[in-house]
Structures are given as C-alpha cells and as structure tokens.
C-alpha cells in the first residue's frame, strides 16, 4: 500500500484552448516504483497533460494530487519544490551556461546560499557550487556523458543535448520524474545508455512517467502504459495488454507513427 500513497494522481483533468478540447477529463494514477509510459499520436495531448501536472497549464477542471496532497493552484516552482520535475520535449537548455551548469540548475531548488554569497566569494556559496557541480558531473556520467561538463550546449549534437536535459531532471533526486520524449534524436548507443540509466533510477519512492514515440523503448522499460488519443485514454495496462488492444492497433496503423 506504500506505493499507492506516493502516487501522482489526476482526476477528471480537462483542458481546452479557446473551445478546442485538448484533454477531455482524464484520470491518471502514476504509481511510485514503476515506469509508466504515456503514448499516443502527435497532438494527442501528452505534453499538455505534463504541463497540467507540473503546473505550466491550469486545467479548467479536475484535481491533481501527489502523495495525497492536492497540487491544484500551486505554481510550477512550488511543485518543483515538492520534487515534481520534468524534461522538455523541445530541449530547454540555457546557451549561456555550460553543460555542467545547466545540469546544476536541476539542484537550484535545494540551494540555500543567500544573495551575499552570490556577489562575494563567501565559503557558503563556493561550497554549494562545488557540491552541485559534483552532483551534476555524476548525473552526466550516469547518462554516458562524462567529458562534456565544460562545453556549452550549443556545441553538442542534438542527441547529447537531450541527455543533458534528462540529466538536469534526474540530478535533483526527484520524487516524480516526467520525461517528454527522452529518446527523440538519440542514436542507438545513446538510447541504450538512456535505457540503462532509466532502469537504474527506478526506486520504490520514484514516480516515473515517460512520453515516448520509440515503441521498442516504451515496451521494454514500462510497467504500465497509458494510450492517449484526441485527449482521451483509449487503453491503460501492461505492455502486453496494450500491444494486443484492438483500439491501439487501429490508432497506430491508422497514422504514420514510428519515428
């Protein structure tokens, strides 16, 4: 029952933009200790659901809770403070920061050094920076990027940038980790590294949700899969159940999936 309490839940999440219903009353129950997959064709509303859960969008209807505590109305930063963290489908790294510093931003919410240390070389701020840098380097190494810390994101190929983005999400030891298309743009070797790293991350306290178009990856790592189409779930279940669901087959054969 421990797993149930640490779940990220949504009930009746409905979101529309100017009359267009993007999410039509979704119920989700993302459990800790599992990897949950969220799949569906382009424009199904996967990213929008993430945005609702992290607070970037405020859904018109529905409740969202983590570990039994309601999250509705909390701004994204407050949700981040509770360890709810995400990666972005369109890589959102800061070009002015080095790769290591970008990853360090995943720890920003844990920082305690005040403004004085921001302007003066006080031991507190230095200590904080070196601690964060060490954690960032470790996170990068876990994802197979040990030597790029001093480079700038723009100098890296797109696949590596995406891994950096993921490193930033995982470095802060989140309690909910939502990855939006983590394998998009990765080559085979990088996808292998990513798969291994994600498997290693699984822990009884971590809720992990992965939006992904790479079916092999989804089917191999996910414990449960939600299939979204036009803002509605058409199937929920284990990879085997989802794979054999006629509706899912129809959706995927009907559209040009598989990128």
């Amino acid at each position, binding site marked *: 029952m421990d797993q149930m309490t640490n779940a990220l839940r949504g009930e009746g999440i409905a979101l529309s933009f100017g009359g267009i219903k993007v999410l039509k009353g979704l119920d989700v129950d993302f459990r800790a200790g599992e990897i949950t997959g969220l799949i569906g064709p382009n424009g199904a509303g996967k990213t929008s659901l993430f945005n609702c859960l*992290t*607070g*970037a969008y405020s859904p018109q209807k529905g409740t969202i809770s983590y570990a039994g505590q309601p999250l509705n109305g909390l*701004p*994204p*930063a407050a949700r*981040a*403070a509770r360890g709810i*963290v*995400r990666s*972005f489908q369109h890589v*959102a*790294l*800061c*070009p*002015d*920061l080095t790769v290591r*510093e*970008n990853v*360090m*931003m*995943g720890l*920003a*919410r844990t*920082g305690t*050094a005040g*403004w004085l*240390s*921001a*302007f*003066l*070389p006080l031991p507190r*701020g230095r200590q*904080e*920076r070196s601690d*964060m840098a060490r954690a960032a380097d470790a996170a990068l190494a876990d994802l197979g990027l040990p030597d790029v810390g001093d480079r700038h994101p723009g100098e890296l190929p797109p696949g590596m940038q995406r891994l950096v983005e993921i490193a*930033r999400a995982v470095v*802060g030891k989140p309690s909910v980790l939502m990855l939006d298309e983590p394998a998009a743009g990765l080559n085979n070797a990088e996808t292998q590294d990513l798969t291994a790293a994600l498997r290693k991350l699984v822990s009884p306290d971590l809720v992990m949700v992965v939006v992904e178009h790479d079916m092999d990856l989804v089917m191999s790592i996910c414990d449960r899969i939600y299939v979204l189409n036009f803002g509605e779930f058409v199937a929920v279940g284990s990879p085997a159940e989802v794979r054999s669901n006629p509706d899912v087959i129809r959706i995927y054969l009907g559209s040009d999936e598989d990128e």
Partner: protein
Amino acid sequence: MSDQVSHMPSPPSALSRLSGLATPGVTAVVLVTLLLFLPALLGGSWTFTLGLCFANSIGVLAVSLLVRYGGEVSIGHTFFTALGAYSVGVLDTRYGISLWASVPLALVLGVAFGLLFAWPSRNLHGIYLAVTTLALALAVPEMINNFDGLTGGYEGLYVATPFLPGVDMGAQRYYVALAMLVLVCFAVARLRLSRQGMALLLAKTHPAAADAFGTRRVWARISVMGISGGVGALCGATLAFSGSTVSPGGFTFWQAIFLLVGSVVSFYGLSLPRVLIGGAFVTLVPQLLSASGAWIPVLYGLALLGMILIGHYMPRIRKALNRNRETG
C-alpha cells in the same frame, strides 16, 4: 525567439582559453594595474575625466546587466543613477556625511526602487517594458526639480566632503571611482557563478524550464531589476563624488539613452574592459565634441546603428570567411 537581444558576438572565450595567459582575470588585473598608475602620467583634467569614465562604466554595466540577465532593455536608468547621485549629494551638502554612509544608502535605495518598479511591471516584456522605463526616465528631471528643497533644483549640489580626510581630493575622485568600478565588476563576475545568477540566465532563455526547476519568472524579473537598479545607483553615487556636482542636467532622458548606447557599444559586455569601452564612449564623445554640440547626438546615433549593424553582419561575415577558409 525574435525578441531576445542576443545577436551580439559573445566574448571570445574560446580564444582567450586557448591563449592561456590572457584569461579574463589576468586581463583585468593588468588593466587595473595600468589604471592605478595612469594619474601619474596624466594631467589633472584627464584624471578627472577618467574618473567620470569609470563612473559611467558602472552605469553602462547596470544597463548591460539587465540585458544579459533579464533579456530586457531599459531606457530609463537615469532614474537609478539620479537616486544614487542625490543620495551622495544630499547627505554631503545637507549633513556633511561622506561616502562611508551615502554609498550604502545609494545601494539600498537603488535596489529598493528597482524592486518597487519591477513589481508593477513584472509582467511586461520587450518593448512594453522599454516604453515603461522611458516614462520612468521622463519623470526623473521633474521629480528632481520639484524636490528642490532637498535636491537644490536646477542649481544642483556640490559634493566636497572627502572620502579619506587629508588625501588630495583630485586623486580621491579618481581612485574612488576606479575602486567602485573594480568592485562592481568583481561582484558581477561572481554573480555569473552563483546559483542565483545561473537561475536568472535560465529564466531569461527558457522561463518555463526555470519555472519547472523552482525559479519563478517573476522572482527572476524582480531580482534582475533590483540588481540593475542597485548598480545604477552606485553609478550615480560615483558620478556625484567623482564629478563633484549633481544637477538635473546629468539625468535627462537623453542621458538614459546614452547609457543604453554605451551598453550597445560595449556589446552588452559585463567584463571590466568591455564596460570601460562603453563608459569611455559615453564620457569622451561629449567631451571631445563639446565645441560642436549638435554633432553629439549624430555621433551617438551613428555609433548605435553602426554597432547594431556590425552585430548583425559580423557572424555572417565570419561564417562566410570560415567557409572560404575551409574550401580554399
């Protein structure tokens, strides 16, 4: 993102890393050493002008800070420089209190008013914020003249209390400005390494990402305004001391634009050499052209345009050259 001011060539960090010796720190130390001995070689009037250069450099830095860390452009920084200058001027002439107390006061006031202005304008971006800062700049001379009991109105104030009693005043005006500039540049360089500074940079380029990692964009905007306002006030305080007079003429709307021109001319740089270029431009152009005042706006305008067009075409030219080199 078409509304980012990010088309200026970035500092040649790769180059300086390659040549090993000329790291930004070393360059700054060499430069400061040079500046320390300059008054011995120059006459009094040049020393005085250089002091003003340093002060204006701090103002240019304040504007560039807002661009680099906030992605926003201000055409109203004379509000903050005036705040700092009158803190020094008023405490000096009315109460005989020297920089020891008036500089901290200027800093506090600058930060406080930066925050105060940032709050109602926290949701404004790009040109909307720029126009609002413009209104801020316009309100400045009016406020100064209306508080003439305190500010001396049109006549202004004369700052004469030494910072270090017994030391030659001309030297003080130079070295205090230099020290302020170096300190501010140092603090700003530290900011780049701090958690807060990095969060500001992330919030500038990807506000949604910053939000998702615990940095609220409103916090970012307000902090950046506070910092920039504080630095702006320090510029004003230094101007008051090194320039010895504080009067409304120094804080007109045009002066605010000149600060922005200085910032553009220095390619929004935050390092000591860069801001010195901007400050020197703002200070020296009017001095050199003082005989033919009408040319000053023309020259400023041309410099502004020139730098923007260079910033626009430089990357292209460089790319074309590189391509030629690769093929040739």
